[in-house]
Every structure is written in structure tokens, then in C-alpha cells.
């Protein structure tokens, strides 16, 4: 792989990040993707669009989110200072709203009255239902039957917001199958439907567009670091399922070569057991859901079923920009097991009074590991991408507690 001079110059005009990305979709979707690409490339430079998005992020989402120094957690770990970018404090409780607010404005300007979305943990589904309600758009959310069972509260939240939640019973009945089903809906209803993808995967322009809308996280964080700490952090970490919160934090720092970047993938029961969702750490390049990227599949090219305690990381692919960053050596991707994530969840709750989402708990676990590698004046910035209220039942059930 050639040396990359400017990580902000990607993707190219075909939506490729080096060998990754692209538009691997059926012919019927080429026209709506071209229409969306044309609209989005125009809007991302449109001052009125940018101003409206900024207003929504400030007054509806509640941005900027603070960077919080987790002092007691840091003391407990005994290494570098752990800083948390508090995306859990956003409206709807996660970073996902950054993207849906943006895509909703695109949908509105394209005149599409109907929104469809896929969801795993339900956070993107809730964020989609939220913006659809606000703009008076019809919203249909596809969700794997397995995920519906383990995220009942988010299913009900979506219904309260007026969305229709469609259970997906094909394949492994999780996020990847929900994405397939949303694609099937879109190919059938291309004329009036806007497909709101929830992560930095899918065909071009989604990896670009979803990254742009989440990049507010890193832009704020970089400025906050310089203002509050007078320097950039030594290392960044975030959890990686599809990878939207991670790329949101990482992107602004990609050309700051001294800042180490570590993505935490779901190692489930441990990568060596085969029960995991660590596409970058344990997968290989392939083609899934419209883009070339690292995937988990067998030797016949069949996508394999994944496992993670967190539904939001339970995905056998990953956004193509992460694959690009891995091959370029700009970011490291490591596995965090279910048990490590749960330990981090409890430690953060008891030392800081913060219930993190199980997804984000993977990042916290990685931040703890990184903190141990650096001296006490080191700075580890961790994206706390969502709050854990939705996971209380899962944790209780896993620990044998009746709620």
C-alpha cells in the first residue's frame, strides 16, 4: 500500500478508500445512489444546509458534548488520564442522532416522504424514528428478530415515536439481515423512499455521508483538547461495529500522526473461540452490503454469524474507511471480549456514576488498557458513544438478576 499523504482526501470520486468501498449493488439501485450522491455532494457545500444542520445539532441534539475527565476511574486504573467524549449525553442517548439529523435534512431536500432504516441495538432505529417524527416523515425500521428480543425497550421507543418496526426472520436474524431487508425495501420503493443507513458501511455515498455527519465528534474533541489540555491526546479509542462513532472521533485526527488510534472490536467469547464480531482483527477482504471491506466469512464466501453481548457491534462487516486505515497502518484494531466490556461497564458505573452502553463499554475497556501503557500525565480520549439504559435488562439477565 502506498504512503498516504492526506487521509482527509478519501474517498475518491468512485467512493473508494484505496481498495475498499465502492458501489457493489444491483443495477436497480445505481440510479437512486447516483441521485443521492449528486444531492449530497451539492448539499455538503451548501451554506444554508450547513447552517440548518448546525442549528439542529446545537438546539435539538444538544451539542457540543463535553469531554469529561474520568478522574476516579483514572486513579483506579493507575495510569494515564482517561477522558470521555460524552456522546451519551446527546438527545436519544447516543452518537447515532448526529447522522440521522443530517440524513433527515438530505431526505427533506430531496423530497422523499418515507424513511427506512435498519437497526441492531435499536439506537439507530430510535434516532431515525426521532428525526422522522420531527419532520413528519413515515418511518419503517427493519430489525432482526433476535435483536428485537434482546432490545425490547428500544423497540417500544420506536413505536412510541410513530415508527413501524418490521421483524426480520431470514439468515441470522440480526443486523446484517436487517440491512439486507432494508435494501430489498429500497429496491422496491426507490421513487419515494430514502434509505437512512446507520453506519459508515453500505455503497457510496453512505460511508462518506455518515462519516461526515459523525465527524462533528472529532472536530469538537480536537478543539476541546487544545482548549482544555493545551495539546492533543496521546491515543484515541472507540468501539467498532460498523464503525460510525469510531470514524466520527478518528477522522479529524487522521493527519495528526502522533496521535495513536485504536479501534475496539467485539471479541465476544474470545477471538480464538470463533464466537466474535471482530471483522478487522480476524476477517479478510470481501464484498458485503454494497462495499469491499473486511468481512467475516467462510471459505465458500458465506458470511458467518457473529457473536457479541452488544447488539450494536454484532456485525460481520465494517465500514470501508476502517479497512483502509488498518491496511495503511494508521489505526490499530483490537478485540475486547464480552467479559472485559462488562467489567468496564461496572467499573465506570461505580467510579464515575455513568452507565455506558455495552457497545461503548468495549471502548472503555480498551481505554483502561491504553491508560496502563502511558504515564500519569498521558491523555487517553475515549468515545463514550452511548448510554446504557437500554442494556440494563441484558446485563441483569446475564448476571442472573431478576429486574
Amino acid at each position: 500500500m502506498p504512503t498516504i499523504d492526506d487521509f482527509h482526501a478519501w474517498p475518491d470520486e468512485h467512493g473508494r478508500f484505496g481498495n475498499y468501498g465502492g458501489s457493489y449493488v444491483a443495477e436497480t439501485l445505481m440510479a437512486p445512489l447516483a441521485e443521492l450522491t449528486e444531492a449530497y455532494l451539492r448539499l455538503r457545500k451548501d451554506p444554508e444546509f450547513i447552517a440548518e444542520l448546525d442549528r439542529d445539532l446545537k438546539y435539538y441534539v444538544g451539542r457540543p458534548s463535553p469531554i469529561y475527565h474520568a478522574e476516579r476511574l483514572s486513579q483506579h486504573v493507575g495510569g494515564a488520564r482517561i477522558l470521555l467524549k460524552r456522546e451519551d449525553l446527546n438527545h436519544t442517548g447516543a452518537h447515532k442522532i448526529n447522522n440521522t439529523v443530517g440524513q433527515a435534512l438530505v431526505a427533506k431536500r430531496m423530497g422523499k416522504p418515507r424513511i427506512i432504516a435498519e437497526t441492531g441495538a435499536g439506537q439507530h432505529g430510535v434516532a431515525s424514528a426521532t428525526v422522522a417524527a420531527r419532520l413528519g416523515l413515515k418511518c419503517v425500521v427493519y430489525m432482526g428478530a433476535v435483536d428485537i428480543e434482546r432490545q425490547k425497550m428500544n423497540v417500544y421507543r420506536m413505536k412510541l415515536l410513530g415508527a413501524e418496526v418490521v421483524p426480520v426472520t431470514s439468515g441470522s436474524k440480526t443486523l446484517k439481515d436487517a440491512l439486507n431487508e432494508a435494501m430489498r425495501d429500497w429496491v422496491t420503493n426507490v421513487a419515494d423512499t430514502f434509505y437512512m443507513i446507520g453506519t459508515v458501511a453500505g455503497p457510496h455515498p453512505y460511508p462518506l455521508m455518515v462519516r461526515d455527519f459523525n465527524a462533528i465528534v472529532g472536530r469538537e474533541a480536537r478543539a476541546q483538547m487544545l482548549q482544555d489540555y493545551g495539546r492533543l491526546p496521546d491515543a484515541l479509542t472507540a468501539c467498532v461495529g460498523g464503525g460510525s462513532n469510531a470514524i466520527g472521533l478518528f477522522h479529524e485526527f487522521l493527519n495528526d500522526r502522533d496521535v495513536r488510534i485504536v479501534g475496539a472490536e467485539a471479541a465476544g467469547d474470545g477471538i480464538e473461540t470463533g464466537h466474535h464480531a471482530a471483522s478487522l482483527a480476524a476477517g479478510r477482504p470481501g464484498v458485503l452490503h454494497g462495499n469491499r471491506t473486511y468481512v467475516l466469512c467462510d471459505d465458500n464466501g458465506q458470511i458467518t454469524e457473529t457473536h457479541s453481548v452488544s447488539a450494536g457491534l454484532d456485525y460481520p462487516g465494517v465500514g470501508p474507511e476502517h479497512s483502509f486505515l488498518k491496511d495503511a497502518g494508521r489505526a490499530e484494531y483490537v478485540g475486547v471480549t464480552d467479559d472485559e466490556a462488562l467489567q468496564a461497564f461496572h467499573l465506570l458505573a461505580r467510579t464515575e456514576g455513568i452507565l455506558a452502553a455495552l457497545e461503548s463499554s468495549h471502548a472503555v475497556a480498551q481505554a483502561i488498557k491504553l491508560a496502563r501503557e502511558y504515564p500519569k500525565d498521558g491523555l487517553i480520549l475515549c468515545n463514550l458513544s452511548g448510554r446504557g439504559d437500554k442494556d440494563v435488562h441484558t446485563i441483569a439477565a446475564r448476571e442472573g438478576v431478576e429486574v
Partner: protein
Amino acid sequence: MPNPVSPIPNPGSRRIDRRFAALKAASRTGLIPFVTAGDPSPEHMVTLMHALVEGGADLIELGVPFSDPMADGLVIQHASERAIAKGVGIGEVLGWVAAFRQRDAQTPIVLMGYLNPVEIHGYARFAQEAVQAGVDGVLLVDCPLEEAAVLQPLRDAGLQQILLAAPTTAPQRMVRLCEAAEGFLYYVSFAGITGAGQLSTHDIAGRVADVRAQAKVPVAVGFGIRDAQSAKEIAAFADAVVIGSALVARLAEATGPDDIAGRAKDFLQPIRAALDAH
């Protein structure tokens, strides 16, 4: 290693072109059945393929099962899941094609599926093995013209890339598709997934006529064709009709080689008759 693939198209590789030329000379509409490889029974796949020809198939589309078939409806999704559960992969599919070729050197075979199994198998390796087995073309649903550079090893080996065109395809893009098309152009009759029910013959007649006027290759129409009546309507303006989900559904419950072959022939023969009466 077997011999490297010859740079000139191998003797069988233009079977598709020859078959369409023969159909044209006879003023017949082509009949292209689609079946999912390995469904309903891996053991009797070759029997099924021969039965398709006996039932009147001019070309066989063999679906390579994939775990995430985004463009397919429930019937083909379930057929793929059954085949995958029985361990069917590219190696098995190519084995059946090679076995079929022992008795049938004439009927063209197109493998239809998604890119990931081919990518993981390796493009060059796939190209060589597919040509040796007797495959004539590939239709990879999620590999549009813009991404088709990865398929160069397949083209170099003599495999024809069958392209899709759709009702949503913009006019300028249609020009490019028509120029690039090899073998035949597969026109998707409606915006939707396989096996859906919204076929409107009236709407597509004009569009297919436009495509046929532009394309250098024959135009086959698929999606939504399920029986003799709908096939006959489409035959009024297409070079060939493709029938998939309705056939796959008919075969799904079959037990044993005689039942499989019988159902395939019983399904295709009335359609063949309707096309020939056209």
C-alpha cells in the same frame, strides 16, 4: 496445476452467442430457467439440469448460493439457505456443471449470484476452474459495470459477463450497458426483488423495445414471470424469458430424482409450448 487458459476463447465459450443465433434463425423465444444450485437436493443436481433441458430450456441459470442475497425474495433466500446448510459452495457447483457437460455440450450455462463467494474463491482461480467445468457466463448481481474491473480475469478466460438493466437505469447509462453487454442483456422487469408480483407487461413493452433497438446482444426479460401466460406476454417483445422463483418454489418440496425431474419438466413444458405457439 492444470494447463493455463488459452488466450483465445475456448471452444465452448461462445455457446451463448450460438444458442441465441439459432433461436433467432428459428424465430423462437428463448426459455431460461433459474434454479438454485444444490436445491432441493445436491445429489440430484445434474439430473435436474438435464430435466430442465428436456423441459425446453435453451440456457440454464444456476444460482450460486450466498448467505446475504440482497436482491432476492423469500423463495430464493430460503433455497440459498437450504443449499448452504448442505455445504454447497462454488466447488460443488462447478462439479455439477462439469458432470452435466459429460452429456450436454450444447446448452449454455450462466452462473448467477453475488460477488463475495467469487472474490473469496479468487478471481483467477474461479475463471480457470469455471471455464474448465464448462461454464459460459456469469451474472453477478452486486457487481455493476462500474466495479467490473475485478472480473477481468473471468473475461480473459472467455467467460461472458451478463449485465443487468433495470427500469431505473438512466438513458445515458443504458447506452453504456448496451455497448458493454456480452452474451445477452438481462432486463429486470420491475424495480423490486425476485419473486415479487408486480409485473406489468404493458409498462415494460416499450422500454424493452428501446433496449433491443440499442443493444448489440439479445435481451432477456426476468423478474415476475411465473407461468405460460406471463411468459407468452413477455415473449411478444423479448428475445428470451427468465423464470426463477416460481420454478424454485415448485421444486422445493420435491423428493427423489424422479420427482425433481418430473416437476421441472411439468413446469417448463407448458411454458415452452406457449412460447413456441407465439
